[in-house]
């Protein structure tokens, strides 16, 4: 197999109605239409999904691993941000 200069695409699959699209993986394709078809063949052939998104990987802005501490560390020791000090009314589920 030869290398190609096809761009990379990120694939998001919605597994069921009511759930959000979840990142499933990535693939190469020459354009969006074929990326969608490749995604169908690679990620939904065993009945995994009801909807697909493909996004050019280049269009994604990601947080940098170098910034992990300034980004995420400060959240760890602030328990008052979690809604754990409320009494949950009866009958409320999935809170």
């Amino acid at each position, binding site marked *: *197999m*030869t290398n*190609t200069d*096809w761009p990379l695409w990120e694939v998001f699959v919605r597994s069921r109605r009511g759930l959000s699209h979840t990142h499933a993986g990535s*693939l*190469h*394709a*020459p*354009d969006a*239409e*074929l990326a969608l*078809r*490749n995604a*169908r*063949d*690679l990620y939904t*052939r065993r009945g995994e999904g009801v909807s697909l998104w493909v996004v050019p990987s280049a269009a994604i802005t990601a947080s940098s691993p170098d910034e992990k501490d300034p980004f995420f560390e400060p959240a760890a020791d602030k328990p008052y941000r979690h809604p754990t000090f409320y009494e949950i009314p009866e009958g409320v589920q999935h809170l």
Partner: protein
Amino acid sequence: MTAPTASTAPVAALALGDDALVLSHRLGEWAGHAPVLEEEVALANIALDLLGQARLLLSMAGDEDELAYLREERAFRNVQLVEQPNGDFAHTIARQLYFSTYQRLLYGQLAAGDTEFAGLAAKAVKEVAYHQDHAEQWTLRLGDGTADSHERMQRACTALWRFTGEMFQPVEGLDGVDWEGLRAVWRKSVEGVLGRATLTVPEGPQSGAWTAGAGRQGLHTEPFGRMLAEMQHLHRSHPGASW
């Protein structure tokens, strides 16, 4: 263990089953050789769809393994188009475009009819619609792509054209299929795709002395024998072997 002869097996199930089986094997030959990994999976996926159809169809005609692995070349009833070698990627796509368009239209008619194939066709036509879409997408991109891809795609469409007329020979047992109507719609559909792909519809007759087409009668082209030898040798070397 004797292989059933063609004369005792339902003709239509063999014709449709052999089309699916042989094309499935040809597409399977791309495994490990496709231009890119994603396309290899796509072709293998189509091959598996066709293999599933072949199993159902051949089971209607007899024992699927005996029919697939123990028949001689002349007992196969597939059209010659599907046995043509993969060639370059453009040849594979042209073969896919011609055959999947035909299969989709034929299965559409069968699904609406009342033969024993109606149920199977209704399920398979959705698979085949995807095969046709895949072939169409690639025909558009190769035909309307680079000068090289255009030339290769045109060459492939022209080379395989002479095998297309055979698909519209009436098959015994498929009563109620409008073969001439099928041919007309097929032609319009293929012409539409080729036109949008900036390709020229090949000239030359689809039927007559200069065209190919006796696969349904058991006459096959030279590469088919080698393909069968590869497909059948394991079963013939180890009869009855299983996983």
